[in-house]
């Protein structure tokens, strides 16, 4: 009995000795952050990075509550949230852009619609346009897929497409981008949105940019800013990143880290 206890302690002790850096937040960033963590831990034996998702809101709430070292967020922190961090820790959170993402618009592979303007998207998602024929498609009702309101993509889309207006109440909210992609792949009249890296088995619609041309969320279009629905992905820390957290963020921004960004399907910031 005693011996097993000692063995147990011996097994746990090293893990405790190097306290893990916890990274929590955006579901959009969870695959990316996990790949970063894997490579980082492979190169630095003994270091531990723990990545979990849950949504940008979850990550930021954890940063405020002190239960994570780094919060991943696919949206900028709100002033109210920054205020909460300052209230509790007397320090402002630091924002580090670590990658760029294009929010793709998915439709079913059989949908004839090729491109949409931001105005059309806004009308579709506000529930003012409910038939595909009004935006150049066939005569069929539009089935809306959205994300849960804890999602950073939800907030990004609401601010950049709906300009702050509410989603139609008929918009179905699904947990996670993968669920949205899966639903649109199965639903002939469906439309959804999410990270460009996830679009498997669905069609990405071109979105009309400022110059009146339709653009796909490709690497060049996002990097050049021509694709209108692109956004930076952030890591937030309480105050300037320091110690283990700084080492990890530095790795993410290094050439090796930015190479992983491209591999996962997002776009580098450097």
């Amino acid at each position, binding site marked *: 009995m005693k011996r097993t206890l000692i063995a147990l302690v011996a097994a746990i002790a090293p893990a405790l000795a190097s306290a893990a850096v916890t990274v929590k937040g955006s579901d959009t960033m969870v695959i990316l952050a996990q790949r970063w963590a894997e490579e980082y831990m492979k190169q630095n034996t003994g270091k531990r990075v723990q990545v979990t998702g849950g949504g940008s809101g979850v990550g930021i*709430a954890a940063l405020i509550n002190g239960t994570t070292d780094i919060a991943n967020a696919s949206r900028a922190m709100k002033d109210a949230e920054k205020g909460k961090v300052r209230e509790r820790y007397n320090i402002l959170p630091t924002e580090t852009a670590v990658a760029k993402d294009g929010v793709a618009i998915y439709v079913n592979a059989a949908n004839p619609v090729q491109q949409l303007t931001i105005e059309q998207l806004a009308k579709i998602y506000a529930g003012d346009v409910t038939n595909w024929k009004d935006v150049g498609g066939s005569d069929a*009702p539009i089935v809306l897929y959205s994300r849960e309101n*804890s999602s950073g993509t939800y907030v990004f889309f609401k601010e950049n497409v709906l300009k*702050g207006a*509410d989603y139609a109440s008929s918009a179905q*909210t699904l947990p996670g981008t993968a669920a949205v992609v899966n639903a649109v792949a199965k*639903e002939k009249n469906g439309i959804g949105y999410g990270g460009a890296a996830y679009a498997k088995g669905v069609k990405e619609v071109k979105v009309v940019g400022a110059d009146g041309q339709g653009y796909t969320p490709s690497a060049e279009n996002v990097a050049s800013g021509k694709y209108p629905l692109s956004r930076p992905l952030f890591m937030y820390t309480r105050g300037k990143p320091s110690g283990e957290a700084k080492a990890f963020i530095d790795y993410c921004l290094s050439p090796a880290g930015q190479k992983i960004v491209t591999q996962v399907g997002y776009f580098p910031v450097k």
Partner: protein
Amino acid sequence: MARPSPSMRRRQLREAAIQAVITLVALTGIAAVVLIFVFVAREALPIFTSPEVREETDLARMFLPQAWRAGRPAFFSWQPVSEIPKYSMVPLFVGTLKVTAVAMLVSVPVGVAAALFTSEFAPRRLREVLKPTIELLAGIPSVVLGFFALIVLASVLQDAFGFTSRLNAVVAGVALALTVVPVIFTVSEDALTAVPRSYREASLALGATRWETAFKVVLPAAAPGVLAAVVLGFGRSIGETMIVLMASGNAAMTTFSLGDSVRTLPATIAAEMGEVVFGGTHYAVLFFIGVELFLFTFVLNSLAAAFVKRLVRRMAGTA
């Protein structure tokens, strides 16, 4: 009168001690329920007391239609993450009731009929297989059932009924029925089996067929138990979270069409609790939903208990 011997006194003491422990354990259960309710209610209290929270929402705005968009008639809206957060409970109530109605419509006939068959008609050998098999259904984790509904059931039902929206109240309700059937089946089967043999023998002796005996004698005699089974199933389906979260589409719509996507009260708590600002309005509202669910099942259970009591008394011939 001789005084009790020391050994007798020891025994009495031991009895008293054991009794005290059992009472304590029983009270712990009750205390847990009360404490949970107090905690949940306390977190919901700011809706009534905090001026900050009341600025964003109050009972009237939660339950009456509001004119949110200029030039549009007043409507119910659940949009907690918005410049003007909207916390209407009505779409959530409607959604919960729609899913529960579908689940009960499917599971009550199936569950009671299966119980009746098992207890009255099935040969003993079949019965010994049937009962554990149906009860096994209750052992399937609801997340697995939800996944099945999301991937398989939704497509099958959409092809069969031509729903516009793939995930809807019917899909969630049918999936939910899979968890409710074993509850209704087990409890009503026990109630039916408990009906005294003499009832059946008397009925058959009077020339009734087996079907007549089953439907007109055994089923009515077991009615309180069957009703209790239905109430238990109802409670199970109203509180189920994972299946509806996965299979209902979670759109907070106030319509009465079963083909529309729905958002239920428990699924709303589960989906949104992770992200809310601790102590904010949204947080208090989610706890308020918890209070509503608690009260809902509490009232329902009390009503059912009272009804069962009356039924039992009437059948015993004392009322």
